[in-house]
């Protein structure tokens, strides 16, 4: 794979309606427009996107054997332990962060951003290839990174880890997990035939609302990210380095392990998007409740103001190019047909 091809992917991504919508949102905030995306519409769309992703996955699940699923699942659990742990210790030793702030940032980077995950699916759809139906399960497993990061933080602060039960329960029943897994199960039960009658609403293909709704959602995410971007000065160049390097490193790891575990090109790339993304709602809320002394201006600004735009504009296409190269030149993974 040559540079020209990578640039081609970058360019195609930049000119996709998803990326352009995100940029429009950023510009709207930067020019101080009074444009406003209603909060409840945001929440409803987030609800819809996660459920739709689960549902689409479930429908494709037919025929999945335990073998094809077991390795990717193990790999994802491994990442959910490795990534927050690595973040935590890098921040503690290289960045000399205190325990609470290191654990806070690790919780965000060690778990999943729904938007980046959904945008990753959008990239795969744009490329007109498919991915494994069980991918939503991997996203749900990856959420466990939050628990690992909070565990390190509590250990470091020598606070009793008894309250960790509550965090475990909250992570297991968190909204994304319930919607992804619930959608997956429903999709698996109703199958292609049951799905046909609700495909207009839920399908990720050109016949369904998914992609268009994601475009609207990304306008709002652009506005949110740009608001955090303004805080950038307070965070400084070190977090800029962290917030742009980490997603690439984690994403490359995700793609590589994913491809080696037998995932297809599409699946390995989406695992890269999962691994490379940083949470900006669920993990921050958990961190705020657990380590109130950690500074939200550090963890939220990095995740929302730096890593989110970086991933949408540069990270995802770069990871896609990497996964493509890996799959074609090294591992030889499968390429699934779109919507299949």
């Amino acid at each position: 794979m040559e540079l020209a091809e990578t640039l081609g992917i970058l360019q195609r991504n930049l000119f996709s309606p998803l990326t352009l919508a995100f940029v429009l949102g950023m510009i709207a905030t930067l020019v101080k427009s009074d444009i406003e995306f209603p909060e409840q519409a945001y929440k409803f769309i987030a609800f819809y996107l996660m459920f739709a992703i689960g549902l689409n996955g479930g429908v494709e699940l037919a025929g999945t054997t335990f073998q094809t699923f077991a390795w990717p699942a193990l790999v994802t659990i491994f990442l959910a332990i490795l990534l927050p742990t690595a973040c935590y210790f890098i921040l503690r030793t290289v960045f000399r962060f205190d325990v609470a702030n290191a654990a806070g940032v690790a919780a965000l980077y060690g778990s999943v951003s729904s938007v980046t995950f959904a945008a990753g699916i959008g990239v795969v759809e744009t490329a007109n290839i498919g991915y494994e139906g069980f991918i939503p399960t991997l996203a749900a497993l990856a959420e466990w990174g939050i628990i690992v990061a909070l565990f390190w933080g509590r250990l470091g602060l020598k606070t009793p880890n008894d309250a960790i039960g509550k965090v475990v329960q909250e992570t297991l029943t968190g909204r994304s997990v319930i919607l992804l897994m619930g959608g997956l199960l429903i999709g698996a039960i109703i199958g292609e035939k049951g799905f046909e009658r609700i495909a207009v609403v839920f399908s990720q293909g050109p016949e369904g609302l998914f992609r268009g709704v994601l475009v609207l959602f990304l306008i709002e995410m652009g506005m949110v990210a740009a608001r955090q971007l303004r805080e950038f000065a307070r965070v400084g160049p070190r977090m800029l380095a962290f917030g742009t390097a980490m997603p690439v490193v984690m994403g490359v790891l995700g793609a590589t392990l994913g491809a080696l575990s037998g995932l297809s090109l599409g699946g390995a790339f989406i695992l890269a998007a999962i691994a490379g993304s940083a949470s900006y709602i669920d993990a921050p809320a958990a961190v705020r409740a657990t380590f109130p002394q950690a500074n939200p201006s550090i963890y939220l600004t990095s995740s929302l103001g730096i890593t989110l735009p970086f991933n949408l504009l540069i990270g995802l296409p770069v990871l896609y190019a990497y996964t493509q190269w890996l799959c074609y030149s090294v591992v030889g993974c499968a390429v699934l047909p779109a919507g299949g």
Partner: protein
Amino acid sequence: METTTISLVTIIAEGVLRERLLEDLKRLGARGWTIGEVHGHGIRGISEYFWAGSQVRIETLVSPAVGEKILAHLQEHYFTDYSVTAFVHDVRVVRPERYV
């Protein structure tokens, strides 16, 4: 109209504290509360970061003694780390037995 003077405690806090604070209030002797959603700005500025959720404004009518206990509790457990503002003043109610 015969009225009795009791305390109204108003607490403004980050949304994530909602359930925890309500449990605390119950334990400290409050028998009811009213909650609204608000946004705000203070010296700490936490609420600006939490773009995806609002703050809560909790009002609870309590006896002066319970009011003191609530303030002391907030002071001990929240004021240092969390964005919490609280104030108290006297109000007159009919049927004080419902609240104290």
